[in-house]
């Protein structure tokens, strides 16, 4: 009898054994393994974005999110909220509301909090005898300088890059997450247990040619300039004349990269590269350099400037009323005469003028690496009318980006050689696969060295207080060459308001930096009164910062009249 009983029990065991081992052994084994196995993602550290000297512009820091379980915190909400609000610098009432949330067991109290702060606060809550507040990992992307260079840096969403260089160079910055699997018992890793680790590959840093301090100063000067002139927006760029590197690329209005959503979308892109406008008289410097290079004129070529000029079926005038003037080419530039420029440019055929301007880089992207870079419009020469020929010579009826224009002016500063601008140090691969950076910069000659030097000397007359239109651009002790621009602004197919600008370089006889300031739609003033003083402020700051000594030579005294 007993034997039968034992046999029955044994057959039950046998049946169970068959079920466990014969029918689905894999699944049970997996379940058993899973019970004690923990798998964690080892997040790769995102590469930093640094300036030319290694100062951080965007950095990743380990952070934590503080989370509350309202089902545990509801009863003591006011006390806990007081601790959290004080420790996390959060709003008391918002925190209180979260701690009392009905039917929720998971509320974010604060996100992206520095680890030490978060841990200290949670510890404080525990010490006060309350439960239900804990932390979870939450990497923080920090922009230590706030709005400095924000328009090119872009920003990060919760987990992914959303714009700017963060998005364009994400492949380089992001790295690859690793993972670790190990067996745990009682919360501790079991030694000699099964474990495997795939080490994360950290992202690489991205170094820019931007100088953080110059960038900051440029942004503040630009902001003040735009605000005081009642302008709509503005751009200011500083370029290293010899290398084409952008030392500063400022847009205004801008935004704080740490809280991008507080600013409208329009302020978060890079106006210097995405917006096109008609450059106006700054273009005259390019036209003059081309004319001299072609041997059509010299700085002292005499031009008789009438009060107005018929061009096609319209009439071209100057910004000031005058009778018949007798100006040299230098005088035409110094006084920014449209009529004089048109008369000089008439020595060019459409093709000649077009080819020179295209050679200066107008109508082509600069391949800087910034997303959505505009190409600008330089109409094909075979479609030009006489009116277009005339207007393009002084910078209307065509459009550019600010970076195109500063590169073109920089070619004059750089003895006639155009260098493609760059903002990334070394090389980096953009999201669309193109290589950008200082290593891929190209250069080619546009005008002869003599033509460039002659043009620079003529541009010096622009800042002369007696003969020029922009004495505000002068920097005591230095020779400065520049050109103002006050253009009609194309809006929705018509013209409305103005675009004022000033582009120049210093020291004029041995240029080191080129600076370009553009203000859109100021309520009053022109390139000489609005943009030129900003140019002088920014230029003298960089000259000082980079210890550029004055050359000591006497400024140009080219005649402006005859």
């Amino acid at each position, binding site marked *: 009898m007993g034997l039968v009983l034992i046999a029955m029990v044994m057959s039950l065991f046998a049946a169970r054994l068959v079920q466990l081992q014969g029918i689905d052994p894999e699944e049970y084994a997996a379940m058993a393994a899973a019970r004690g196995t923990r798998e964690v993602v080892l997040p790769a550290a995102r590469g930093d974005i640094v300036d030319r000297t290694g*100062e951080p512009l965007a*950095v990743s820091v380990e952070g934590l999110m503080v989370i509350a379980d309202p089902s545990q915190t509801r009863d003591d909400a006011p006390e806990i909220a007081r601790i959290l609000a004080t420790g996390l610098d959060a709003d008391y009432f918002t925190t209180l509301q979260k701690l009392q949330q009905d039917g929720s067991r998971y509320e974010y109290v604060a996100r992206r909090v520095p680890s030490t*702060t978060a841990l200290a606060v949670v510890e404080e809550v525990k010490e006060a005898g309350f439960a239900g507040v804990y932390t979870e990992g939450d990497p923080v992307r920090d922009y230590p300088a706030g709005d*400095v260079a924000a328009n090119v840096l872009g920003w990060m969403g919760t987990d992914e890059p959303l714009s700017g260089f963060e998005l364009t160079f994400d492949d380089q910055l992001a790295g690859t997450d690793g993972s670790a699997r190990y067996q745990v018992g009682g919360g501790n890793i079991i030694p000699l247990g099964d474990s495997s680790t795939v080490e994360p590959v950290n992202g690489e840093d991205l170094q820019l040619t931007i100088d953080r301090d110059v960038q900051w100063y440029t942004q503040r000067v630009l*902001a003040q300039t735009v605000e005081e002139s009642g302008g709509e927006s503005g751009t200011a760029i500083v370029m290293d004349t010899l290398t084409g590197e952008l030392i500063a690329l400022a847009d205004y209005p801008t935004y704080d990269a740490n809280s991008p959503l507080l*600013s409208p979308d329009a302020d978060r892109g890079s106006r210097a590269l995405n917006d096109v406008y008609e450059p106006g008289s700054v273009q005259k410097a390019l036209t003059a350099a081309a004319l001299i290079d072609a041997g059509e004129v010299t700085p002292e070529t005499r031009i008789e400037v009438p009060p107005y000029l018929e061009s096609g079926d319209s009439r071209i005038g100057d910004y000031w009323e005058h009778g018949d003037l007798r100006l040299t080419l230098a005088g035409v530039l110094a006084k920014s005469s449209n009529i004089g420029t048109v008369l000089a440019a008439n020595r060019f055929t459409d093709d000649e003028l077009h080819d020179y301007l295209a050679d200066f880089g107008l109508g082509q992207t600069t391949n800087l690496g910034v997303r959505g870079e505009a190409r600008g419009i330089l109409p094909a020469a075979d479609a030009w009318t006489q009116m277009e020929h005339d207007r393009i010579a002084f910078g209307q009826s065509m459009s550019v980006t600010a970076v195109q224009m500063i590169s073109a002016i920089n070619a004059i500063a750089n003895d006639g050689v155009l260098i493609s601008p760059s903002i990334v140090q070394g090389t980096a691969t953009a999201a669309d696969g193109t290589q950008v950076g200082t290593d891929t910069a190209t250069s080619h000659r546009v005008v002869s060295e003599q033509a460039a030097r002659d043009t620079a000397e003529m541009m010096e007359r622009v800042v002369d207080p007696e003969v020029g239109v922009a004495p505000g651009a002068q920097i005591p002790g230095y020779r400065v060459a520049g050109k103002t621009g006050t253009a009609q602004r194309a809006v929705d197919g018509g013209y409305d308001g103005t675009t004022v600008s000033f582009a120049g370089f210093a020291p004029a006889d041995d240029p080191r930096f080129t600076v370009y300031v553009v203000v859109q739609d100021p309520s009053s003033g022109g390139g000489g009164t609005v943009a030129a003083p900003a140019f002088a402020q920014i230029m003298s700051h960089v000259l*000082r910062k980079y210890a550029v000594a004055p050359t*000591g030579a006497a400024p140009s005294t080219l005649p402006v009249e005859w």
Partner: protein
Amino acid sequence: MSGSEAPRWRAVPRLAEVATTRARLVSVPRVRRRAARVPFVILVTAVLLGGIVGLLLFNTSMQQAAFTGAELESRAEVLSARQQTLVREIEQLRDPQRLAEAATAQGMVPAPQPALVDLRTGEIVLPGEVATTDDGLAIEPKAPVKPAELSPAPIYVDPPAASPETPAAGEAPAVPETPAAEVPTN
């Protein structure tokens, strides 16, 4: 064929030799010498015990190491978090904006024209110019104009009829440009 036969033929005398040798061996009475059991048992027990204790100690020390490891790891995490926070603090302190604000608070302004001295000759290349408050720079960035969704028009509530005075205008949040849509609530 012959090669395989020859060795067999040659092997015969050798076999005989072996047989002779064997025949000469004299059988001796079997003596069963009993090895002492106790030392062996002690040895085995000792080895076993030693093994078990050793294993136990080894395991314990492994566990201990694991605990220490986990503890050190969490300490390292806390320390690296602390380091990062400190680095971040330094960066915030070095922020050009903060420096400029601190300088402005002390009454400093950007120099309009610093003097330049040629160190090779000791000559003043450019005389400096005294800065005035007019050289100050507006360093405070303007508060961003928030997108419409983030800056809803304030809700104005008519005061109760009992108090005839309206609340001071300064109390209502200022709304730049966009005229506030009045939302009557009573």
